[in-house]
């Protein structure tokens, strides 16, 4: 900490005559100075409203933000500084406290190392003295307000959310000592201070007694919330590098639409197809489409296999449209172009004029899409089916994926088999 210097500047208080905010400001500076903080040790975060006029009064670092958001801004400053020798003090009024109530709860939940001072004058001072979410029913009756909803108990809310220290102080003679205690508390502390609004509320401190909530002092013994720092490897280093191992018969490009239902392995079948294309020296793209409810509804994937680099990744006229479930077929049947080869599962339409196969029967619910893709690869001869086996070889689901690829053979007359390199016998 730096040598003791004044926390406040010599700027005149900007508040209305008799306003309680000046007492709150002086109490805050006294508390900081008594604890040995110098101006450069403190970051003051201010809100909007009468309490937002405090910046010029402080010789500390200051940041003046939006209405209600000062506690959220303070969270960022505190975590960003990550320095126990620096103190983040946030000041806001009762209006700001309800706009940004979520931020107070979040600071409490995470026990962020900072002190929030809520200066409660029971009303919105700058806009005409309207009632706030922290106005008491007694005060609202006094102001002839029809609103009879109980006020938020922001001190208790902070406590219930995990704040290390939350307190309401009504007696101005206790402001400084309570603020010292709050500032000295590791973690999140909230101090609600009662403040007189002479322009819209009351003229004397004594009048407040009938209108304010009783003092409250609540403690949680919890560790300070910090943001963990870590060192991580490049995202590029975990990308599987695929080198050409097989030959492809594709001269230009071909695009395939694969459709099924969520959880049916459509996206993984498409990715295996695209990766097998790369192993066969092709440029490939793969994109998925599904409703926002990821675990239900249709699942559609598009794969382009091309001899030349691919720019546009959409598919105007697919060479093949494959569907293994009815909801998948309903989603893609309008994609069928004149030149499209169509392959659908028998359960979708047994008597369709398209090519119907028992993908679900031989591949099962999870393997039907891969079974259909494998069937298409073998039928068209775009590249050896061994490329598909090669892709899945190192997968943790290798056995079931290999089985799905193999199952396509039951739909064909010619029998083939593939033995992974590491399983081949040597003579």
């Amino acid at each position: 900490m730096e040598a003791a210097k004044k926390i406040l500047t010599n700027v005149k208080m900007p508040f209305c005559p008799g306003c309680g905010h000046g007492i709150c400001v002086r109490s805050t500076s006294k508390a900081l100075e008594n604890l040995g903080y110098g101006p450069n040790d403190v970051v003051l975060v201010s809100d909007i409203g009468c309490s937002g006029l405090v910046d010029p009064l402080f010789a500390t670092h200051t940041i003046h933000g939006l209405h209600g958001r000062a506690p959220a801004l303070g969270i960022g400053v505190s975590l960003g500084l990550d320095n126990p020798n620096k103190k983040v003090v946030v000041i806001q009024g009762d209006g700001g406290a309800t706009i940004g109530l979520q931020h107070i709860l979040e600071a409490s939940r995470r026990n962020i190392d900072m002190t929030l001072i809520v200066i409660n004058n029971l009303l919105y001072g700058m806009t005409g003295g309207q009632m706030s979410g922290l106005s008491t029913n007694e005060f609202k009756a006094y102001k002839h307000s029809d609103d009879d909803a109980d006020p938020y108990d922001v001190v208790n809310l902070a406590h219930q959310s995990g704040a290390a220290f939350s307190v309401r102080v009504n007696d101005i003679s206790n402001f400084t000592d309570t603020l010292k205690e709050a500032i000295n508390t590791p973690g999140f502390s909230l101090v609600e201070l009662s403040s007189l609004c002479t322009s819209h509320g009351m003229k004397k401190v004594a009048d407040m007694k009938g209108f304010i909530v009783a003092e409250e002092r609540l403690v949680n013994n919890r560790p300070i919330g910090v943001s963990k720092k870590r060192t991580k490897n490049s995202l590029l280093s975990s990308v599987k590098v695929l080198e050409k191992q097989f030959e492809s018969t594709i001269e230009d490009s071909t695009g395939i639409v694969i459709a099924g239902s969520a959880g049916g392995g459509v996206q993984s079948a498409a990715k295996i197809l695209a990766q097998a294309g790369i192993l066969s020296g092709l440029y490939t793209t793969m994109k998925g489409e599904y409703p926002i409810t990821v675990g239900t509804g249709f699942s559609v994937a598009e794969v382009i296999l091309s001899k030349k680099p691919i720019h546009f990744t959409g598919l105007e006229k697919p060479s093949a449209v494959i569907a293994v479930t009815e909801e998948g077929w309903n989603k893609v049947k309008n994609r069928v172009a004149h030149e499209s080869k169509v392959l659908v599962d028998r359960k979708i339409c047994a008597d369709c004029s398209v090519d119907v196969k028992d993908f679900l029967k031989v591949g099962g619910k999870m393997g039907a899409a891969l079974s259909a893709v494998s069937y298409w690869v073998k039928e068209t001869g775009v590249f050896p089916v061994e490329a598909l086996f090669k892709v899945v070889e190192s997968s943790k689901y290798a056995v079931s994926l290999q089985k799905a690829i193999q199952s396509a053979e039951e739909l064909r007359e010619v029998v083939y088999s593939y033995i992974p390199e590491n399983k081949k016998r040597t003579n």
Partner: protein
Amino acid sequence: MIDASRIITEALVQSGADVFVGYPITPSNLFYTYSKERFPEFLAGPDEISVLQWMCGYSAAGKIPVTATAFPGLALMTETLNMAYMMELPMVLIITQRLGPSTGSATTGAQGDLKFLDGIISGGFPLPIFSPSNFNDAWTLSNEALKTAVKFRTPVIILTSKELVMTQKSFDMSSLEPLEKVDRTPKEFKFPFQPYKAGLDMVPTFYPLGNDEYQVRFNSSTHDNEGLIRKGTPESLANTWRLREKLEKRIDEYSFFELDAENGAEDLIVTWGVSADASRDSVNSIRGKGKKVSLLIVKTMLPISQKIYDIIDSYKTITFAEENMTGMFKEMIFGKRTTSKIKTATKFGTMLTPSEIEEKVN
């Protein structure tokens, strides 16, 4: 196979980004996932307003924060984005466009947020918007975006689209050159230090909150060089005016585009973002049929450089290729009025195809 979300995330970290603060939203989810794997710090905010406020706090404390969202999140962030702009806080926001209005179709791509971003800073102040057109752009433009954020002390946007950042492609990763980490050494300044006093480059020297050398004040309201609220003084108004000047007058330092000009061509296709690859194919097809055509891919969408206007003015007909209803970039150049000189190849709800662009050009 790789996607642009991975490339952009890696590029930002290599360029010096410190922390990702996010709330997941489709189709920006991959950024969230990858950032959790990669960033030196990762924070899950409870809502998008909190996310951007936390980022402002981090930025004011000297860190470079990044987030990724889509229109609904951006809408919630708008007031805080204005605050970050006014405070002159460097940060990067990735916006992945999806079909609107409102929640629209979260898993359908679009290019419908450009005009919203054009006016997003109250008063018509420019916000730098970078829009990568392919994977290589995703790499280099992310680096440029972050450098611009620091150099000009401003939030910047990387504007993407669902199909650009979620589609997986085969890709030669050796084409990605190592990226230069941004230098955050404070610039020299004329004593005494004032947090908003700028020199000839119109950008004030940045010192973080909490530093032991100089008192720093950040302010979201109209402020003087000290960072204190001043309503309508010449100094405070000049300070606000400077926010526009620093970005407009030095635009050529961060304006990026790709011009594939064909000698003798009278037709120009103007495009951006996810529609650029369809336009590249379209141009190849048109040229293959013996017709001359040029292609302009705009990568710094806002503010618009005079160079973009000059290129557009030098062609007889211009076709704007965009995945939105009316041609938003076209409207930013020419307004809503369409003449025989101006054509729009637009699409709503599905990707704009090369043949649809070609049809308009012809």
